[in-house]
């Protein structure tokens, strides 16, 4: 059965979630992945948006993390002080989703600037809640399409710290969370190698060769001892994504 890279990424991201987990959700693929998981193996997932909506059950596809549809029918609305202090810093968030213009060898993410900070070639939006999510979420899942420019050896600016920043480990930097344990791309699944803190190839999507993946990153990508073959989206997953979750194909076209 045919499927788009976005559909595959969403299905793979959804499988990263366990039932009952408390998830910090973003807009787009993360939101679709969470709702796909809720509709399949994780009905008790608790969706939290940094806007303050807790236990949201959006009746429509939210176009922003502050969408009113995330509030109506949710379990709780809390202030952003509570979101960051009582939920995130408190350690209650089990999974956080992150993405970014640049992700490097150690899972550091840049959403601030391409080029010099003082006079950048491209000014990106900045951290938002990403820096604290990367530090406090018990683990994070990164979603990004493979591309040498998006996966440099080292990011221009560390907005969200990964497993090694300025030569320091997360433990040395006293970060509560485990950081980006998985990177879901359009061709393969990367995961962190605990000893080195480096991202390595852990799973290949159907029909993808290892070299295609290696060519998509800016450093000599190593492979995990055993590289999995990642299952394609099931008919059920595709049905839910196409007919129920994103019927207008806002996010799943390509």
């Amino acid at each position, binding site marked *: 059965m045919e499927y788009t890279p976005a559909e595959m990424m969403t299905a793979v991201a959804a499988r990263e979630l366990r039932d009952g987990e408390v998830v910090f959700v973003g807009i787009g693929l993360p939101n679709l992945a969470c709702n796909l998981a809720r509709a399949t193996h994780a009905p008790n997932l608790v969706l939290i948006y940094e806007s303050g909506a807790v236990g949201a059950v959006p009746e429509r596809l939210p176009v922003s993390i502050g969408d*009113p549809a995330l509030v109506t029918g949710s379990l709780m609305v809390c202030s952003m002080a509570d979101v*960051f202090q009582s939920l995130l810093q408190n350690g209650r968030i089990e999974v956080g989703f992150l993405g970014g213009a640049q992700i490097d060898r150690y899972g550091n993410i840049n959403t601030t600037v391409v080029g010099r900070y003082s*006079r950048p070639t491209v000014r990106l939006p900045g*951290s*938002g809640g990403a820096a604290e999510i990367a530090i406090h979420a018990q683990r994070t899942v990164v979603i990004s399409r493979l591309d040498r420019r998006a996966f440099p050896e080292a990011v221009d600016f560390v907005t969200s710290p990964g497993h090694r*920043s300025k030569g320091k480990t997360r433990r040395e930097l006293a970060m509560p969370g485990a950081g980006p344990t998985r990177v879901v791309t359009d061709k393969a699944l990367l995961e962190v190698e605990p000893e080195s803190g480096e991202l390595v190839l852990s799973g290949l999507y159907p029909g993808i060769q290892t070299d295609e993946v290696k060519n998509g990153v800016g450093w000599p990508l190593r492979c995990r001892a055993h590289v999995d073959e990642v299952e394609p989206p099931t008919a059920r997953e595709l049905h839910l994504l196409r007919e129920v979750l994103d019927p207008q194909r806002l996010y799943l076209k390509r």
Partner: protein
Amino acid sequence: MREAVAQHVHDGDTVVIEGFTHLICFAAGHEIIRQGRRDLTLCRLTPDLIYDQMIAAGCARKLVFSWAGNPGAGSLHAFRRAVETGTPPLELEEYSHFGMVARFSAGAARLPFWVLRNYGGTDLPEVNPLIRTVRCPYTGEMLATVPALNPDVTIIHAQRADTEGNTQIWGLIGVQKEAAFASRRVIVVVEELVDESTIRADPNRTLIPGFIVDAVVVEPWGAHPSYAQGYYDRDNDFYIAWEPTSRNPAALAQYLDEFVYGVRDRSEYVAKCGNLERLRASERVCAGVNYGF
């Protein structure tokens, strides 16, 4: 609105128009542009379209923020041009959302700083020397700090308030309470002015007490293209259309000419926008609770 802005927003002020996606007071931003305020230090977690417009209009000297994008639609191009080309010059003071929330929390508590466990491993402290550290007097560990933010004026859009400014908000409440308490002056802009008895019937719903409010302005649709839960939906088409508009300086200038300089007040703006009724909220009224004893 004209009087409130004239009286409470001055050139050189530190100005906050808060509201996270929800209840962003575009009406106040437009009036500030019309009155030609200059050298403002604009603070917001998410500058959003309203600060992009104020930057384009030349109101801003400095931006204090944590996420500067057009949610789900693209970039804030006036902001990007200023930063990428240096014209107009725009000074940046950048945090993460948590850092901005902490700055408002410190301001509201009238403490000089706030403590948070954050920024280890990030490059933010290197480009913002105001992000510092403090040693815990109990554990000895080092924690991050941010300085208090105490704006000259904070403008809050809300669903309803009474004439004294006792203000009730539901749906996303963001950081409005902290911003209001941190501010020297507070302007509350509401969809609806209600009798004090409406406020007193449900006191747990009140977010801002009247005695910290300096002006109350009634401005229906004042948050458009942002939204007001229970009143109107977000105008997502407008946000999407802003991408090409702001990308093109001429188009942006024309937008300001037509919809900001070209109207006398919010009612003219609403008329000019045409069919905003399409955004009118559906009815999803909750049950009340018993305050008897």
